[in-house]
């Protein structure tokens, strides 16, 4: 099924911030039940500017600042969602989502189930994630795996402006709670994983060409970022671009799958690819142990056991807090990914 784009859409070059802003704007314009709040998102428009201009355009009551209280932000959003609104809240950094963990896991995720559908929480929780900006221990984390362990939550991570907008609109329209992580290192451009190579931006990039209006992308479909035959690379967010760079660097004919949504997961696409290639590499920035890579390995080995020629390998952040000075030793960058690709391709 192709992405649901309305016919002949007017396209515009956007970076990921603009794409997210546009998604919010489109939904706020269409649906008076959509409102946006969070720390610094109102007048100022968010510390990453994702909500810039929305208060001015849609009104003080539709995009506003919240007290510094992630638990209260998600808790009130759940109440609004139960009422029938579609709140979209921002957690300023994914590292600060933990004070809201109980509200997300015990409430947003459980409300439909425990009330047998009587009450629901159609809320979207946006939050910038990931490293690569010298944010250290508390501005770099990738906590996505935690949410994939919680039944009742969807976890989505775009890797480019086009997907970001389509997936975010989908998330807002979804009747289940969605945790929507935005890889902040990609806000302004794709990133090869080599901090020393010149920064790129989304200008002129195909995936930075975004329809101005409404469109959605299904969570159930992974995106084949690059088709290939010899190796399957499973990744999402920032690591899609590191994978691309590493594949270029190594010259291996790899298939790069951008999962986009971790839960629900497009297992079919994964199994199809690994069955074809027989080798599988998994990349994520998060801490390794019990990261989402483990779950991917569990599923791949179950479904592709007899097709696998080599053990599945994961290249990830280390099992340490995200260090400040040694950011690039921690980050699973171009070099580590390339080494892993070469090794997995050895006979």
């Amino acid at each position: 099924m192709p992405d649901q784009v309305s016919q002949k859409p007017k396209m515009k070059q956007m970076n990921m911030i603009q794409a997210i802003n546009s998604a919010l704007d489109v939904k706020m314009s269409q649906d008076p039940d959509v409102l946006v709040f969070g720390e610094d998102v109102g007048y100022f428009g968010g510390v990453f500017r994702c909500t810039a201009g929305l208060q001015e355009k849609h009104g003080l009551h539709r995009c506003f600042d919240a007290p510094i209280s992630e638990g209260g932000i998600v808790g009130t959003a759940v109440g609004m969602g139960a009422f029938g609104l579609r709140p979209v809240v921002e957690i300023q950094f994914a590292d600060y989502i933990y004070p809201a963990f109980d509200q997300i896991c015990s409430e947003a995720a459980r409300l439909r189930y425990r009330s047998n559908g009587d009450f629901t929480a159609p809320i979207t929780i946006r939050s910038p994630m990931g490293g690569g900006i010298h944010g250290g221990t508390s501005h770099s984390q990738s906590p996505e795996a935690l949410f994939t362990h919680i039944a009742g939550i969807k976890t989505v991570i775009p890797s480019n402006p086009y997907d970001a907008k389509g997936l975010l609109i989908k998330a807002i329209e979804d009747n289940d709670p969605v945790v929507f992580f935005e890889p902040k290192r990609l806000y302004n451009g794709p990133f090869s994983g080599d901090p020393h190579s010149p920064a790129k931006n989304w200008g002129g990039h195909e995936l930075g060409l975004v329809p101005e209006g409404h469109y959605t992308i299904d969570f159930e479909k992974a995106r084949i970022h690059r088709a290939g035959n010899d190796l399957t690379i499973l990744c999402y967010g920032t690591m899609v671009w590191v994978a691309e760079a590493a594949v270029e660097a190594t010259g291996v004919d790899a298939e790069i799958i951008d999962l986009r949504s971790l839960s629900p997961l497009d297992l079919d696409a994964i199994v199809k690819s690994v069955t074809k290639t027989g080798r599988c590499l998994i990349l994520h920035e998060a801490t390794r142990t019990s990261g989402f890579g483990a779950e991917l390995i569990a599923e791949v080995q179950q479904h592709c056991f007899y097709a696998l020629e080599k053990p599945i390998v994961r290249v990830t952040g280390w099992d340490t807090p995200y260090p400040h000075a040694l950011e690039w030793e921690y980050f699973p960058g171009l070099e580590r990914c390339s080494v892993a690709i070469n090794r997995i391709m050895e006979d």
Partner: protein
Amino acid sequence: MVAHKTSRKNISNLHVPEPLNRPGATPDFSDLHMPDLVSDKTHTLPRPIPLVDAFETEQLASGLVRVLTLDGRAKGPWDPKLDADTLRLGLRNMMLTRSVDKRMFIIQRQGKASFYMKSLGEEAIAVASAMALKDTDMVFPSYRQQGLLLTRGYPLRDLMCQVLSNSGDKLEGKAIPICYSSREKAFYSIGASLGTQMSHAVGWAMACAYKGTDGVSCAFTGEGATAEGDFHYALTFSSTYRAPAIINIVNNQWAISSFQGIAAGESKTFAYRGLGFGLASLRIDGNDFLAVYAAIKWAAERARTGGGATVIEHFTYRKEGHSTSDDPSKYRAKDEPNAWPLGDPVDRLKRHLVLMGEWDDERHEALEKELDTYVLKIYKEAESFGTLTTQTGINPATMFEKVYEDMPEHLRRQRQELGI
């Protein structure tokens, strides 16, 4: 609030508060800081207009708002002056709640349900609240306000089937007993995590304001659970956005085995916390049906007319164990429930009606019997749908439903794995 009397070995400077009465002691509440309950002079606190400046409620937050005297008279400016029919309805709803609690406790003891929680002694709070609110005002209960559901006419059989977790359970056995949900009766889904519903109520109230309705949300927490962050979020957000919410703290003196002083610390009252946020705050006699009714009416009017949230502490007493899993004789003096100086809400409203000449012992006993008979009859119907321990009759496939709106592939696969 409550002075520490019985001292145990504590060789350090760390202060750990202790309750007035421990097992073995003769219960004594004379150290409970409360206005003189007998004298008519201190009985009456002023009733400001609902849109009063929040800080003018200081006296109401530190004192005790009452209407009924202990001998059954209704007095003072908070008297809602309800007619006899309404009062009798209130009495009936409280007695119904009590009767249902009694029956459900028994059937749990018979092994027919996994769990139950009574509200004995606290019935006025839920019943009077439901009667003072509009039926469309969403209530966000803790697990001890079954009186709200019963007062709003939720089918008793449905309630019982929920407790039995059987095939008649509208929640298909997903939730533990007493975690009811009824959107139809504007009764929010109860989750067992304490406190979490408080910020939901404020979010709901913000939604009411956002949509320009005159809806009000009405949340309940135990005094123990005020220590959770969620209580703080509720006060903060309702203060910031002037949410039309009523934030009720049911101070029934106990949180399982912990006396209220563990949550209160050196606080004057729980209501006083609201003042710190610029919210109107009242402490009321929670065993006084009329006071509860009047306070909720006042707060609802304040909320509906743009005055924002009110914090209400209902001063009451949990006469039974925390739940069917609890044995209160392990941690509190045996006779404490009967020594409670503010009496019993059913007895007090009954006395009032009798004093009015609108009720008598015979009618009371007859009503009690009628309700017990009715409750037993409905229970038998409910039981015919199965009990948890016999056969629930719930289709295992339903376990995978309502996790999400649509069942995702991985749940479909798991359902297959279970062979259904």
